[in-house]
């Protein structure tokens, strides 16, 4: 069984896992970080999106060993102590969730969207960029509103991947 080591939400972690272990299983079952969800398990819904070195990816379509040595951030690692991340705050403020199942993936995707596209996002851009995230409660209207507001609140935050490239 391969040993995998990575940093998750700032903490170094390491475990022996079967090669088949998906990143989402590693996060949920080994680390008990159950905020990252599995909606479809067929790479379509985006409920499992996490950041790996500042890049959003579907953790149900990535083996844990593929991100060996990486810096992983899950929804649990986004807030600063008791202070919600501006995107989380915007979802709360704009009622951007109904049952909440898709929300962790929506928020992780939204944060990376701002890193890639900037903080001044129009509705069409937000809707196009949400192509990989499904909400079964179909609450898209408020999700889009929340991302619009959250993006503005994130102005100036260009993300780790962009910073590293500079």
């Amino acid at each position, binding site marked *: 069984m*391969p040993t995998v080591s990575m940093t998750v939400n700032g903490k170094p972690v390491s475990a022996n896992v*079967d*090669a*088949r272990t998906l990143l989402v299983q590693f996060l949920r079952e080994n680390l008990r970080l159950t905020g990252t969800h599995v909606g479809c*398990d*067929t*790479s379509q819904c*985006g409920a499992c*999106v996490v950041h790996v070195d500042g*890049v*959003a*990816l*579907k953790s149900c*379509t*990535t*083996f844990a*060993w*593929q991100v060996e040595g990486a810096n992983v951030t899950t929804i649990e690692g986004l807030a600063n102590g008791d202070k919600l991340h501006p995107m989380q705050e915007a979802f709360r403020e704009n009622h951007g969730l109904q049952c909440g199942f898709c929300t962790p993936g929506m928020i992780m*995707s939204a944060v*990376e*969207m701002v890193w*890639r596209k900037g903080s001044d996002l129009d509705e069409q851009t937000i809707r196009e*960029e949400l*192509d*990989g*995230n499904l909400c079964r409660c179909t609450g898209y209207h408020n999700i889009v509103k929340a991302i619009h507001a959250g993006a503005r609140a994130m102005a100036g935050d260009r993300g780790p991947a962009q910073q590293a490239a500079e």
Partner: protein
Amino acid sequence: MYAFEIHRPTTVRQAVNLLAKNPEAKLLAGGHSLVPVMKMRLASPSALIDLSKVEGLAGVEVGSRSVTIGAMTRHRDVARSPELHQVMPALASVPDSIGDPHVRNRGTIGGSIANNDPNADYPAACLGLGATIITNKRKIPADEYFQGMFDTALEPDEIITKVSFPIAKKAGYEKFKHPASGFALVGVFVSKRSSEIRVAVTGAGANGVFRATVFEEALKKRFHPKSLDGVTLSTDEMNSDIHAGKDYRAHLVGVMARRALAKAVAG
């Protein structure tokens, strides 16, 4: 998913040796075609040979007459290459139309072309530009490389290292997305490079990506959407499934070709 071993080579030579030693092994690039089919047990490789640590396989290089893209270059990095946008925005638009942002963050050109899904976008760009697929062994012209649905000229121990695209001054890609999957129900890539005209179609054919030669002939007089007026594609070679019938697909090819041409002649 069935159990498998993992190998993480750092050179193409190591990867080739591993592949030769493990006939049941498969290469792993972005994993966004392979992992889903492994989950469904439609693929059960004995080992995965991960290409992500192999040096020198990623990057976009723009020369004076061609653009070379490393096999492990992610869709996102091709779509965002400023140099590519300058010389051939039509090619940059192809990975930008693939899947969703998360898929584009992981998927690679090499994986897409090796997989040769009949609804994938890159095969249309390769055939539509007359690209050359470069492997550890040889250079394969796109016209010989794509051999039907999920079928290519690749041998079992062959690895794509890069793809070289000649720069065409006039080129355009237009895709009618399947509304649920995002894959091309029909996608058409057109290009004109001196006297060479190419019209490549993905999604529509019963046997994968193909060149619409009747359109190419019609465009020889003038490379313009109007030249396709009254020209229709035979429905014989079209695919038909629950998403669209032969007639509908053949019609869509005409519509997408005109739109791609309009883009190409606009600049």
